[in-house]
């Protein structure tokens, strides 16, 4: 039996999109998602809100952790297309800490069309400043320290490698428990020798 999704699809997805824009405009500041849909058990409602907002039949999704039930639900509400491989995906939904494709394999866009790159939606448990690296770049008034639970130095190194050829690169969202953090390709890791606020 399928369940419903957003109670007011047009306005709920608009508000979600607005929250996502804000998250990218001020990276690494946790924001809240104003509208959480009914969602299958394995899919966090915050991630579900983002996927309902971003997906349609022209978007290719790579989501190895989707259960069959969640797949049917998402298919019904968005009519998304399944990507045949991570390389083809426009959007990826990944659970941080689960097995995942190397970020270097994802689409980084082309110089003429840098927008033809992958966006990764990470399902996370929460965020911490503890042991987090320091980020800077457009949208940071001062450098900030934050990371989702479960990210480690290797993860950030891999992320950094993907975004060396700006404007090519990948954009990421971390979402879970009603919270949302954005990390656009324009953000950078700050050298550890420099001070961080």
């Amino acid at each position, binding site marked *: 039996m399928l369940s419903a999704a957003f109670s007011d699809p047009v306005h709920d997805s608009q508000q979600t999109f607005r929250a996502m824009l804000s998250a990218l405009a001020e990276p690494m500041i946790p924001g809240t998602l104003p509208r959480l849909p009914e969602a299958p058990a394995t899919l966090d409602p915050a991630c579900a809100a983002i996927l309902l907002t971003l997906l*349609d039949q*022209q978007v290719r999704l790579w989501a190895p952790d989707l259960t069959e039930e969640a797949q049917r639900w998402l*298919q*019904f509400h968005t009519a998304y297309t399944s990507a045949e491989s991570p390389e083809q995906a426009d959007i990826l939904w990944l659970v941080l800490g689960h097995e995942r494709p190397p970020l270097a394999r994802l689409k980084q866009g082309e110089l003429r069309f840098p927008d033809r790159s992958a966006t990764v939606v990470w399902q996370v448990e929460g965020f911490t400043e503890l042991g987090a690296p320091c980020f800077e770049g457009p949208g940071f008034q001062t450098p900030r320290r934050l990371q989702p639970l479960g990210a480690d130095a290797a993860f950030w190194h891999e992320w950094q490698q993907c975004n060396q050829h700006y404007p090519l690169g990948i954009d990421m969202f971390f979402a879970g428990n009603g919270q949302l953090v954005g990390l656009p390709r324009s953000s950078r890791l700050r050298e550890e020798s420099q001070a961080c606020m």
Partner: protein
Amino acid sequence: MYVAVKGGETAIGHAAQLLAHARRGDTALAELECRQLAGQLRHAVHRVMQEGSLFDETLAALALKQAAGDVVEAVFLLRAFRTTLPRLGSTRPIDTAAMRVRRRVSGTFKDIPGGQVLGPTADYTQRLLDPQLLQCGAAHSELPQADPLPNPLPSVLDTLGAEGLIEAELPPPGDPAPSDLTTQPLMFPADRPTRLQNLARGDEGFLLGLAYSTQRGYAENHPFAGEIRMGELELFLEVPELGFAVSLGEMTVTECQMINQFAGSASEPPQFTRGYGLAVGEAERKTMAMALVDRALRAQELGERITAPAQQAEFVLYHTDNVEASGFVQHLKLPHYVDFQAELSLLRTLRQEHETRQGDPA
């Protein structure tokens, strides 16, 4: 120095009120209903649907009413509205052979299977203004009837196809989904499906002029109207949760198959080639023009000399869209005060230099 100018809000507000007032016209007369427009000005409504690229009679009639009959403005309104709607999918490719035909004529064969069926055409009217229409309430007479025609009516071009005298029209391997101009920018070289999408939403007047130019010698065409058919066909949408294609209801379309000579090439024997026109609604002139332009744009593919504007894809496809064209032409109304001041000042300087030179005896 750059000076930002503000002001005009009040004037703009009042102009909008005046516009609404002008649209309504004489309030002693009944206001037009959208249903009346769709029912009695169907050609205008169909044209707004074609060029607005949104097939919805109610919305097209509304746009036409709101634009006070300005077709290009109505097209703009419809294009703007469509951007607010989610895309649910693509229909199954429509099967024009399965059409319930209301008009079907051929300019190439007198005797065609099913016959020449005129339908609701103005072709044989004398084009004399009918003063009776100045009054409303004309008497409604019973329409003549005859035994229904075979359904569906076979395609005229199949006869030529059976003899191999016309190029076959088959889907390419894999029957790929076409690229979509509503989501992908127009790039060159543009394949034929992309060109046809562009022409289908193109301005009828522009296409008609281009088509006419090909007939007057600005392209190597010698066209015949192989078949024109108009009628209703059912739209089907694949619905994954149902597991089958569901009928959405019927839509009126017009199709034109032009036949053109082709001398043959190293690999192809001499045969007829095709130009294709398809549009929603009753759109005979539009589809005929579209078919002629489609054929002209195949010049490169068929190894023909490219000598005329109608054969140049970039020229044609970049200028068919009346929303773009109207926007760019009309943007000249917007304040260009600063640009113009610069031009003016440059001209004054040049003038001064010119006068100095004139007055200089050397």
